[in-house]
Every structure is written in structure tokens, then in C-alpha cells.
């Protein structure tokens, strides 16, 4: 079982309903935080954690996931389809 952490998102008007961080892949590069510090922070184990899944719009959230050099952030829509990485 992959070591993942899931965060539900219920932002109005958003197509993304879940953010998943794969902790085995996360290396603490903090590129996601550079895009959206309102969404993520690093914990004391050097892993990205979501502090507010609803903080930003879909475009910024997708940019934050795209920025990850290890593809550790996965985004899902309401139907459970993976929006990123495609």
C-alpha cells in the first residue's frame, strides 16, 4: 500500500475534489509551496502536507502539482478521475 495522504476539497466551483500527496515520492523540494504557500507546508519529516485544500483556484492548484519534480501530488475530480498527472 502506497504511503499516501488524502485531502478532500469542496471549494465552490472547483472541479477538483481530492488532493493526494504520495509521501514515498515527496522529497521536500518545496516547489509546491513556492507556488501556493496557502495550500501546503513542510512537516518536520520534510514532507509536504496540505494545510488548506480549498485555499486556491483550480489553475493554481494544478500549477502546484505540476511544479513537483517527483510527481508526488495527484489531483482527482468529483468522479474520481485523475486530473493530474494525466
Amino acid at each position, binding site marked *: 500500500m502506497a504511503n499516501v495522504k488524502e485531502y478532500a476539497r469542496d471549494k465552490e466551483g472547483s472541479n477538483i475534489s481530492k488532493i493526494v500527496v504520495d509521501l514515498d515520492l515527496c*522529497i521536500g523540494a518545496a516547489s509546491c509551496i513556492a507556488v501556493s504557500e496557502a495550500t501546503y507546508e513542510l*512537516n518536520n519529516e520534510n514532507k509536504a502536507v496540505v494545510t488548506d485544500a480549498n485555499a486556491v483556484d483550480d489553475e493554481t492548484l494544478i500549477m502546484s502539482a505540476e511544479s513537483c519534480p517527483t510527481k508526488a501530488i495527484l489531483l482527482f475530480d468529483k468522479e474520481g478521475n485523475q486530473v493530474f498527472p494525466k
Partner: protein
Amino acid sequence: MNHYKYLIIGGGVAGTTAAETLRRGDKESSIAIVSDEPRMYSRIMLSKANFFLGKIPFDNVWLKEEKWYTENKIDFIGNTLATKLNAQDKTIELKDGKVLQYEKLLLATGGEAREWPLPGADKKGICYVRDLSQVKILMENVKTAKQAIAVGSGFVSFEMCEMMKMAGIEDVTLIMREPYYWYPLLDKESSQMIEDALTKGGVKIIREDEVKEILGDSRISGVVLNDGKKIDCQTAVIGIGLACYLDWVKEAGIEINKGILANEYLETNLSDIYTAGDSAEFNDLILGEKVQLGNWINAQTQGRTVAKNMLGTHEAFKMVSFYTCIGFGLNIAMSGDVRVKTECRVVKRGSPEINSFARIIVDCNDEIVGATFINRSQDLMLINKLIETNFKVSGHESELSDPNFDLKQLLSK
């Protein structure tokens, strides 16, 4: 002759992020990327265990699929080099003689691993960790090597020593010129934590010495150091910095120093020509000087900013630069200006004894200018925020030095 509204030289993280941002802001205009590599991949992943030791599929290294370029109408001209720039005609000539015309040009040419300046440095087994093709060669070499050396005291050597140990190489020796690891960017105490982790991980450390001779016929079999000591090795990883080869850019009339000189808008001295990423030597508004930085997040963020400027906004690049690396159970980060100048003071947070230690560097204006972190990544972005907001340190020393104090409480002050 192909004509592009936006032409990007360099398909790494700066160039690709710029293309992505350009496409978000301009759905129709033509965009092309010229790259000497097959397509965009994660340079960061190359030195991480998941990739290097094959724990994840090799193809995970690619950050952009081929279809991404077509879907976004980005012409990707791969496996070639730009060799000539004519700023007057607004053209770029490629290695194969093909000429491309641009309206706006981005030079995101990155850098190369600095070559080991010794006779015999072209022998087999001598490896670099800058690009995918180099790392593929290294991955093959570690399969058979019994002994290896790493040269340099930066993040390449640190991460690769761990990879080589994890790959099963019995003897790994680290050779550095410096008196201690990461000198002068780290202090002796922090460096000791790193050296202890290396030693505990089975790496031998040789300080204040250099290789003077490479042994072996076509393949490296060992090295001789300045002090005469001989070390047997079948693989050597060289991590001694980055070099930019910019003669063709200079010939076009663009001002260069070590990198391509740019202002805070990432504009070069010639109109409609921009630069971003490792090749940019830009005016850093946080540090107040021209700097050239070789790290992923800087390149990525500059890629975004430069694209916005190419689209017509006038946005200065302003970011507290930082980078992180991991190995031997440590995570190490540095942000801002970590040089401790004579007028600076250092506030220590945590300690080597609790295996969690940060140093916060405060200048004569009572403001934080930089910090180093070992196993304290939770502080990284908060300290960056304090740097960015010119937080005054006086009166807060005890809070800053208390490793359990939540730095978020200072942000609202």
C-alpha cells in the same frame, strides 16, 4: 524559415515552465522550444533513490509526455543546439544549419557540470550527475564498481555518496579541498552533522586534499592525491560546480559575466531577449546584487515570471531563493544569503545534539538575510517569509532560538 512569436532556447525546467505559462496567457501564438535533450525530465529525481536505484519505473523521470507538447501547440525541436544568434535579424541558427525567426527570445540554456580539469579525466568510469545521459552511464558503472570516489563538497557528492552506498559499493571515499563539508556556506557545527552522517553511512572523508593524478588505461582504476596517498576506484563522481558555455550568446552582443546578465525583469541588454534559470545572472531584489543560482525552484519560478514579462506584463522577479537536499537521514536546506559577513550575527535554533539545527543569519539592519537548516525543513518557508517581509529580529532572539517555538506567531508581527 520557421517564424515563432516566442522562441525558447533550453527545454529544462525554466524553459518548459515558461512555455507552459506563455500558453496559458496566449492561446494562439506560436511557441517553440529548442533543446539538446529528448524532452523535459526531472533533473532533481536523477540523484534520488526512487529513480537511481530503480524503485520506480524509469519513465517516471519524464515530466512532460510527448503529447503535452502537441496538445499545447508547442513545437519541440529536440536533440539539437542553438549555435548562433543574430539579434538584428531576430534569428537563431541551429547546429544543423536550420534558421528560426523569433519575435521574443528566451535564453534558458542552463549549465553543464564543470569538467574535472585533470589529464585523463575522459577515462571510463568518471561520471557527472548533470543530465539524464550522464546519470544513465553512472547507473551502469555503479553496478560493477567495488570502490568509488566522490569529488567535491556540495549536494551532488552528498546525495551520490548515499546512492553509491545504497547501490552496494563497498568503499566510497569523498575527497574535498575544503577543511569541512560545504565550507564556507555552512559552519563547522552544521558541517559536523553532515560529516557524521556520511561517516556513519560508511563513507570515508578526505579533507583539504585534491586528486593530482588519475590512474588506469581506458578506465579509471584509482587516483593519487596531492599528499601521495593512492585510492583504488572504478568509478568517480565529479561534483565541482556548474559552468555555462555562452560564447555564442556573447558574440551576439549580449552582456555576460559567469551567466547571462539580466535585470530584475529577466531582460538582457538587448530588446526582446530574456533569460531565466541556471544561465541567468540577474539582479536579485532580495539580496540587492547580481547572482546566478543553480537550483530547480529558482529556475521554475523564473520561468513563470519571464513568461509573464514576454507576454507584456512588467513583473519583477522577487523571491527568497532556497534549495533543499536529502541523504543519510538528513534533510538540508539553505535559503537567502548564507554568507556570514563580518557585520552579521547568527541566531541558532535547535542544536546538533537534538539532530535538528538551523542558523538564522541577521544583518546589521537587524533583518534576516539567510538561513541554513538541517532536519528543520518545517522552518524553511516561514524563515523565507520573515526574510521577505524585512522582519526585525531584536527582541525576538529567544523565540527564534527556541526550536519548539512556532515561527508562524512571528509572521503577524
